[in-house]
């Protein structure tokens, strides 16, 4: 079947088999290898992308179901050479060790912050319950998401200014409230 999918702002038209999973289409046809496959059971969340602005596990969506729709992957988050605030927060808080779960964690964290711009620790943990990390024990991931929330808070100038200068490098208000998609 012929499908046209907008991925990270670019339209791609391709012939795909109905059985092709979206994650395989992204990686193998479009070269979007930033999105990874972590499991065979749709448990791990490593393959999380946004489909029309909502997080989905791209191993549990057929490529044909993305026809005519917009996909954002972790590769589409940076703007003008600057990482997305959630990416920056993961870096700043050392929210990864091996890094394999990170693309999915970041995409789900952005989805969570779009729904709930100021989650408490419990809400972050619940918001990320579809994403497994086998290295970190999640502590720094939770810290990173809450840090990103503070950086992205709309109109949070005074709050944001309370953190030290280094944390503000690269803060880009245009990303506020979502993944820019």
């Amino acid at each position, binding site marked *: 079947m012929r499908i046209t999918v907008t991925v990270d702002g670019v339209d791609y038209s391709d012939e795909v088999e109905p*059985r*092709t999973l979206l994650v395989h289409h992204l990686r193998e046809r479009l070269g979007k290898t930033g999105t990874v496959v972590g499991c065979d059971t*749709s*448990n791990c969340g490593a393959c999380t992308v946004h489909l029309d602005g909502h997080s989905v596990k791209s191993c549990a969506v057929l490529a044909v179901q993305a026809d005519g729709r917009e996909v954002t992957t972790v590769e589409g988050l940076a703007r003008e050479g600057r990482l997305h605030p959630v990416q920056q927060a993961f870096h700043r808080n050392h929210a990864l060790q091996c890094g394999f779960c990170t693309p999915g964690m970041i995409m789900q964290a952005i989805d*969570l912050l779009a729904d709930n711009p100021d989650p408490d620790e419990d809400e972050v943990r619940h918001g990320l319950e579809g994403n497994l990390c086998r290295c970190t024990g999640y502590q720094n991931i939770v810290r990173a998401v809450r840090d990103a929330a503070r950086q992205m808070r709309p109109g949070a100038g005074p709050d944001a200014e309370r953190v030290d200068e280094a944390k503000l490098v690269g803060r880009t208000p245009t990303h506020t409230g979502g993944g820019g998609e």
Partner: protein
Amino acid sequence: MIPAAFDYVAPTTVDEAVRALAAGGEDAKVMAGGQSLIPVLRMRLAAPTLVVDLSGLTELTGVHDDGDSLRIGAMTTHYEVQRDPLVREHAGLLRLATDTVADPQVRHRGTFGGSLAHADPAGDLLAPALALDAVMVCAGPSGTREVPAAEFFVDYFTTALAPDELLTHVKVPKLTGWGAHYEKFNRVAQAWSIVAVAAAVRVSGGRITAARVGLTNMASTPVRARAVEEALVGQEATAEAITAAATRAAEGADPPTDNNADAEYRSHLARVLTERAVTAAVSA
């Protein structure tokens, strides 16, 4: 893994979908949100020759006020159910149970109707549907028919739907002003319920005047804990009365034994979780 090859159609009306299903014969499979089916296809536990994808059926999405009941489109996602103001007001038990389904990504894709038609007894929406006396609206080649939840769930992964029928809507009678709670027990995040209890109660002047209790994963189908319901009605809403009623939670159930829990432990869980669920529902 990669699914075995299949043909794929994405109808845009219920009539088209029913025709496609009939034409596909017994190896055709309906796909709603695909959050159970696609993993099953990937693991090659199923290999349908035709997948009929309902995701284009916009007529099957949304929650509508039908007077005494809500009419919920089978393709309404969990995410939509969680946020629907009508569900919140008139079917709080359904919202609370939906909050516990899988994880946020799955709730964006997975659907209310898909979960019910999949009929996994560990699924979290079956017991609430049973407790709420929901009615399933099914469409087939000869028209539509309505099946009460008590007759819809037949066995493990088996419903009253004929092979050429679709679940199109679910009628959920309003329980406005009732207290509700869904108490789910599992070991790790996003795991299936080992046991869960769905409870809705109406309290008037400190007395329980009506009670509904449904059990998840206590048999091959969801189960109504009728003995608990009968023991609660007419009682003062006290801890003692709830504790006494909850001791009867496993009566009539036929819990499975598997790697997570044996039948005896599940019966124990049903009693403990029923006490917690009713206690929370009374004070909700």
